[in-house]
């Protein structure tokens, strides 16, 4: 329902002579924590054996130096149904990889990371996803009737609760467009989302043009991860404005078993994924 908030926001900006500018603000400095980006995504139709887990640390908010890769950690994932253990090898650049992962829909997996004498763990179940039913481009849909947008549709299976993560990344842009989807209001229907960029000179945002390519990924996810993403996306898009909730710490599924106060950031997800690239004509 994030568009409800968007309406209020645009009202605020439009109704009056408001103005925005970038300013210097002094922000507090919190503790440095381990960040675990353990996204074991199994692309439909592939073996899914190659997987990467990223470890880094947090940095002060305005630090331009964001290269905070963590090396020297021990990383492994266990399939709790088959008890198979997959060991991830330290690539010394913050990434830990394996070639032997075996994805099984519905199985539960446990992640274990040992770093600086503390043990971090997380457990997640692998969720399936439906394939895209169509990917098209148009101008007349979306917010602006003259701007290009890409529309993606997929069929939601009826009578079961499904949660999705939909990610658009334009190859010309730094930032992705993220959607979290819950089938509560759309159960059993064909669901359509669009990604459209509205020109904004102040922020240097340009509309899509023919030739632009967008990478689109859709993942089946757990309810807890959906809730995590909802907060992540809401805060990423509008933290601080008067019509959004007080921003709060995101609580992922990774815990520190040795020192619970030193909670890591990030999430351990195990998902089936469909991925396409789309080039505007």
């Amino acid at each position, binding site marked *: 329902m994030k568009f409800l908030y968007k309406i209020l926001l645009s009202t605020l900006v439009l*109704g009056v*002579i*408001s103005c925005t500018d970038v300013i210097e603000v002094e922000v507090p400095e919190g503790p440095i924590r381990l960040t675990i980006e353990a996204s074991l995504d199994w692309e439909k139709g592939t073996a899914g054996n190659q997987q990467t887990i990223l470890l880094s640390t947090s940095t002060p*908010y305005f630090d331009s130096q964001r290269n905070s890769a963590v090396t020297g950690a021990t990383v492994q994932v266990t399939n709790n149904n088959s008890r198979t253990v997959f060991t991830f090898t330290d690539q010394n650049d913050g990434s830990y990889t394996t070639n032997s992962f075996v994805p099984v829909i519905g199985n539960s997996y446990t992640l274990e990371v040992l770093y600086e004498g503390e043990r971090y763990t997380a457990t997640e179940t692998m969720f399936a996803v439906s394939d895209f039913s169509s990917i098209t481009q148009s101008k007349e849909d979306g917010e602006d009737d003259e701007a290009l947008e890409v529309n993606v549709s997929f069929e939601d299976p009826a009578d079961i609760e499904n949660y999705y993560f939909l990610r658009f990344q334009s190859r010309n842009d730094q930032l992705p467009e993220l959607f979290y989807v819950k089938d509560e*209001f759309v159960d059993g229907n064909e669901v359509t989302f669009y990604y459209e960029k509205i020109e904004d000179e102040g922020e240097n945002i340009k509309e899509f043009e023919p030739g632009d390519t967008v990478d689109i990924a859709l993942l089946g996810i757990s309810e807890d991860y959906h809730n995590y993403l909802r907060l992540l996306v809401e805060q990423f898009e509008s*933290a601080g404005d*008067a019509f959004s*909730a007080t921003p709060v*710490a995101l*609580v992922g599924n990774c815990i520190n078993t040795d020192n619970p106060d030193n909670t890591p950031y990030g999430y351990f997800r195990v998902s089936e994924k469909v991925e396409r690239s789309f080039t505007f004509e």
Partner: protein
Amino acid sequence: MTKTKERYTPIRLLMGLCLLLVSTAIYAQDNFTISGNVTDKINGETLFGTSIFLKGTTIGAITNEYGFYSLTAPKGSYTLVFSHLGYKEISMQVVLDQNQKIDTEIEEFSTMLDEVEVTAEEPERAILRKPEMSVSKLNIKTVKQMPVVLGEVDVIKSLQILPGVTNNGEGSSGFHVRGGAVDQNLVLLDEAIIYNTSHMLGFFSVFNADAVKDLKLYKGGIPAKFGGRVSSVLDVRQKDGNSKNFALTGGVGVISSRLAAEGPMFNDRGSFLVAGRGSYAHLLLKLAGEKNSVSFYDLNLKTNYSLNKNNKLFLSGYFGRDVFDFDGSFSSSYGNASGNLRWNHIFNDRLFSNLSLIYSKYDYELGIEDFEFDWISSIKNYNAKYDLKYYFSDAFKLDFGVSTIKYEFDPGQIKPTGPNSSINELQLDQKRALESAAYINAEHKLTDRLTAQYGLRFSHFNRMGGQPLSEYANDQPLVYNSTLRFYQRTDPISETIYKKSESIKKFSNFEPRLSLAYQLNDYSSVKLGYSRAAQYIHLLSNTSSVTPLDVWTPSGKYIKPQLSDQYALGYFRNFKDKMYSMEVEAYYKTVDNRIDYIDGSDLIGNNTIEREILNGESRAYGLELLLRKNEGPFTGWISYTLSKSEQRTFGGNAGGPGINNGSWYNTPHDRTHDISVTGAYQFNEKWSFGANAIFQTGRPVTYPNGQYEYEGISIASYSDRNADRLPAYYRLDVSATYKPNRRPDKKWKGEWVFGIYNVFNRKNAASISFGQNFETGANEATRTAIFGIVPSVTYNFKF
């Protein structure tokens, strides 16, 4: 049968108290009563707050909101004086040897628009003897003199420059009283509950100044006749309409225009008022090629009819609406509608009564074209009220009455609007409740110096059935996950369907109210007050500012009623023959069962709100100072508030430490310092000037304390809620009013109002948001400032 018994409890209580009253009434033998109505000679409007007294005695009375007064004195000859500031004093000889009715018309010093000397109305001075405290009163004339943004006279904004009242920054709806939340204010327009006080998300108030007679804000010491909200009562009364002549008033401004017509009706047995206001900025925006539009309008109606000397009927209505359209992709509209039928009945010269039947409604509609669905939510209430006032003696007056409100909540429905809509139809559970109350309140002059006001309100809330309700294991809709360390929603284990005849939950509360005024000498007094209030309905809002789409929800199985206790102490003083006055008040207020929202709460379209909230508490305390200059060509005031407003929420039944680790944290409307200086200067007959200067501590916010990379983006980390603050807010506004030469015989009277809002063009941060730059990906802080310098011009007329 326990149900029946409970229903009659308040009535019984009241009857008992009435008996007490009758038994004390016996000794009044050689006394006689003068009663009547006081009206304005020019337009026939009844006058509220006129003081009537017998010269040389301490016997006096003040007219009520319908202009009625009653005073009782021993047999004898007296000089009866009618005094109302800004009006010519009238005195007459009376021989009091029988009860008599004296209706009086009093005349203003000069007609409104030609007024040379600006004086504050009586209610705006420090009133020493009445125990009433923590009350802000503004005459609509004063409100109209203040400089305002875009030339729109705004009742609510005017209140915000008095002590103890703030808003949540420019562009936020509602107002905050003594650290309370927006939903803790009871806002009444001719007694009807108004659920949303703002147009255009807070830029303008819903009250059309041309239709308003007076307003009174009770910040504390709330009289027992009001209830249902824990922070304040804003009592706004509409004009009755000119009963002498037909008159037109209006104004043309930058954003909107107004027109009001009023005049006598029913062969001079009544009068009417019709006032309309509409914005047209959206038309200009359309011309300028802007595809999105915002507009609002409202309509006020009032008419009254005197059946005879002792019976008068009033009918009033309000309808207001905001409409937003975003280039056809989204459209939304929302507003209040209310109607009230009143019957004033004077039983005898000492017993005044009013019966009101009131309807009010707030609804919100949103249409999303892209996804082809409509979203609708509403709250409706039907209210019957019977209020009586018994003027027992000069030293003892009694208010008592009963009220019952039936609420209907429709928290939301979704309707697909096209064949291709991927959205399924959905109706959230509709809720019903009945809130009833009985009260009795005495104003008692104990000695010549000591006056007390004491009362008791008994309130009862019945959350009625007619809906299913989810049940949870161990009654825990939420449970603390101690491994992952957050509040986790639990799944319902079953559903109970409550029939319409059943009750889901009942609550009742006794709400004592007490205030005392001790007059130290002719020019100063000390007052103290205590009040307890219960609030049974709550506005669900987890954002820093409330929004029009927030929905109200009743107390019930999982949400407890809010209960507040407020203590206040004040010192009041007039200087230099009432030319200056000073009011100092300190208060301490606690609220139990204030709802708080868990991290990541999701309120929109949610049928199980109990899985998103915990019951917490809040407290607020502060010191308020108001210094006024009431007379002379230069009038104005300085107001200063030093305050603190915090909340705390433990885990309770859900376990765990609670929200924000169970520590106290600032509410979003906490303001340490709030200073405003307001002045009006009458230069000559043609020109007058006004200015406001405002300084406020910045709004509490939560800044990021670090960042980490995830999904290719920078994610901000946060710790304690509302531990940081926006930069301080300050602003200066000025206005000038020009009244062209006019001959006294000319009916048309016009004036030009020129204003400049935010003269220094200061970019006050309404919010600061944190995010990545779209182009470079670097983190940055972006300030949104709403109004820079805004010049305006408005033309007002009266015919």
